[in-house]
């Protein structure tokens, strides 16, 4: 075992950049493919968002005169951001990190892994090609019937939307199976469930949710396609269909899906905070279990999107379950705070983004609880307050978490640091731009401005202009990031194995890791977050390690000395 103190050397990269554009079954290549692809879709979704904000800069539809064109903008913006950016981006992190973190050579099913990834680019192109064929989808990312039916959406784009989501759903199911099997069966000998890094717990919970929820979306999409292509009329009231079947099924999937979008980001935060605050994660077990708790509760709240739709009595249980989700989420928030409390915080960009997550996700969570109260939601539903909520949790939560993860693991993935100065510019522009874009939307919603409108009452203009200004700042904010990545991949400062002096297994191997991840059987840390202990310090320094014969390892003879606290 070489120690991390040895001077870093550039690692030989096998195959160069070409392998990222080809079929590969190496989970690290696939992980990077996921991340780069989904980031490209982030730019596409972001471009659409900039067009949305440009339209809303003035109340009188000065930019696009047609409601249809505008409806397509936000429909595809929402769909791209959720299904082609956040979900695959986090799956990319999972792919890259989970095998490394549990000390495995690869995912359980490398070929399946590659297949699941390669469903995504064509699905994305299919979705975007709606603009080239007979009309882009324009029924919102929720695509409620009857609006999305053949009668009211005679646009081929809507059919492509359904096909595209079908493919993404399949990808998600296959990916989840792979993650669950990998985490369950492939952990390094001696690594118990509660010795896993929290990110793996998050991916496990996420995969279970995706496995149980996505099939329902697939079924509903099948019926949508039959309605549109074979004229069946499942959702058409006139032919005995049920128009409420779609909203119920859609949210039965999509509410759990919002936790698919945030749990892995929370997992990233649970990794980043202890490392850069030099302190063990506070309340490991409760954080791990609260992910599962959120997953279970998440299946019982879908009706909170239908508080103005369902019969009054049916709304009540959903209010109670929705509010209860504040409890497991609160456990995480407080534990993170306790983690940094009393630590020795290094303000690297990764840490800034993680702290940004803490501060902004909190606001998004609060607005969620407001919306969970039926009488309040009756006023706020489908107004800009909901738009504010969803961006505070999705941008202030998932996206800031994703950036924290990128800055944290970039040195592992490429062997080189991202530039800190550009990183800090990126962070501050993003943080300020984000707040300016989405905070005013709360007030717009309270005043009653409906969402999904391309023209509005002039009394709302001032706050809208602030939001548009913020959105332009956000567009500028990504530039330093892109420059940083392109520059640092080739010219960045060399990082070495363990630049942050972290304790999870991915940091014990080279940066970037060799083809089979570990040259020797990895040696488990006393605990993934054993900061502040002599054993932990010794582990990071790579001292006192004896290579153990593989046979003994394989029989699990070597237990970590203080496994599970």
């Amino acid at each position: 075992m070489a120690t991390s103190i040895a001077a870093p050397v550039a690692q030989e990269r096998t195959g160069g950049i070409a392998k990222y554009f080809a079929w590969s079954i190496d989970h690290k290549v696939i992980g990077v493919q996921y991340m780069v692809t989904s980031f490209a879709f982030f730019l596409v979704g972001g471009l659409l968002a900039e067009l949305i904000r440009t339209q809303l800069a003035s109340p009188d539809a000065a930019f696009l005169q047609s409601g249809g064109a505008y409806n397509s903008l936000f429909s595809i913006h929402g769909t791209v951001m959720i299904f082609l950016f956040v979900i695959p981006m986090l799956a990319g992190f999972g792919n890259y990190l989970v095998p490394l973190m549990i000390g495995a050579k690869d995912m359980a099913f490398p070929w399946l892994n590659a297949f699941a990834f390669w469903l995504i680019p064509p699905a994305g192109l299919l979705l975007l090609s709606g603009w080239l064929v007979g009309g882009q989808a324009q029924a919102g990312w929720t695509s409620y019937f009857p609006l999305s039916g053949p009668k009211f959406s005679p646009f081929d784009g809507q059919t492509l939307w359904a096909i595209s989501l079908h493919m993404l759903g399949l990808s998600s199911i296959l990916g989840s199976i792979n993650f669950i099997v990998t985490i369950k069966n492939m952990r390094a000998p001696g690594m118990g469930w509660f010795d896993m890094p929290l990110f793996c717990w998050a991916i496990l919970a996420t995969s279970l949710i995706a496995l149980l929820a996505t099939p329902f979306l697939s079924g509903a999409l099948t019926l949508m396609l039959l309605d549109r292509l074979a004229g069946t009329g499942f959702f058409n009231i006139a032919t005995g269909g049920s128009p409420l079947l779609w909203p119920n099924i859609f949210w039965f999937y999509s509410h759990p899906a919002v936790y698919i979008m945030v749990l892995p980001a929370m997992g990233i935060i649970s990794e980043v905070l202890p490392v850069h605050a030099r302190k063990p994660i506070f309340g490991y077990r409760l954080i791990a279990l609260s992910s599962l708790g959120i997953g279970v509760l998440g299946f019982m709240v879908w009706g909170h999107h239908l508080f103005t739709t369902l019969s009054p009595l049916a709304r009540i249980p959903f209010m109670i379950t929705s509010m209860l989700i504040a409890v497991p989420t609160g456990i995480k928030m407080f534990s993170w705070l306790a983690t940094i409390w009393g630590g020795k915080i290094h303000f690297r960009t990764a840490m800034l983004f993680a702290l940004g997550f803490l501060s902004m996700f909190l606001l998004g969570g609060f607005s969620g609880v407001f919306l969970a109260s039926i009488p309040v939601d009756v006023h706020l539903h489908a107004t800009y307050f909901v738009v504010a909520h969803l961006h505070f949790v999705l941008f202030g939560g998932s996206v800031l978490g994703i950036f924290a993860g990128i800055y944290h693991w970039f040195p592992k993935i490429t062997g080189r640091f991202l530039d800190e100065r550009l990183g800090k510019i990126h962070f501050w522009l993003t943080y300020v731009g984000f707040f300016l874009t989405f905070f005013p939307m709360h007030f717009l919603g309270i005043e009653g401005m409906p969402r999904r409108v391309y023209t509005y009452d002039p009394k709302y203009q001032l706050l809208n202009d602030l939001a548009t200004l913020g959105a332009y700042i956000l567009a500028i904010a990504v530039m330093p990031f892109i420059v940083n990545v392109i520059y640092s991949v080739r010219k960045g400062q060399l990082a070495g194995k363990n630049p942050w002096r972290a304790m999870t297994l991915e940091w014990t191997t080279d940066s970037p890791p060799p083809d089979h991840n570990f040259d020797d059987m990895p040696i488990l840390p006393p605990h993934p977050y054993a900061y502040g202990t002599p054993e932990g310090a010794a582990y990071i320094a790579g001292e006192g390690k004896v290579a153990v014969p593989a046979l003994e390892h394989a029989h699990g003879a070597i237990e970590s000395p203080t496994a599970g606290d």
Partner: protein
Amino acid sequence: MDLQLARTARLNKFDEQRQARDRDLKNKRTALQLWRVANGGVFAFFILANYLMRQQITPWPPAGVERISATIPLIISLALLLSSWTALRAQRSIRVDNAKGLRGFTLMTLALGVVFLAGMALVWRTTPMTGPYSAIFFTMTGFHALHVLAGMIIFGYVYSKSQRGAYSAENYWGVEAAVVFWHFVDVMWLLYFVVLFVF
């Protein structure tokens, strides 16, 4: 001393390979379990859709629409049940290294699958398109039939491999996967049969 080391090394290697294979098998078994959960989700979804449509339309089938007769479906259900048994026998055979038995029972399973699909086709031909009742019927049976077809393709593959003697009592994952999937499809059919023809 040297000898000892060499022996340990050989043992290690053997052990590692064996472990890798065992783990691989374990992974595949877990994955197949999870796949059934996901796939079963879609089957369950259509049952839910069927239920919700019935809530909306009384009587069911709608007035003027004739209920699809359960006679042929009942017969082919028996065929499918029987095929589950033949599939099981195929797996039992290879477990005791009886390759001939494996081939025979696989062929029988395939034949029963053909009987099922042929019967289903007959039902479809005699069922007119009348609106929601037939729409959900075609969707559910069609979805299920696709899975029967998939199961048969897998069994066909197993059969062609078994002709080349690919399976043994030590190594019969392909057979096992086919049989497990076939049982799953069979159970789903029983559920659908109850939903479509009994209630």
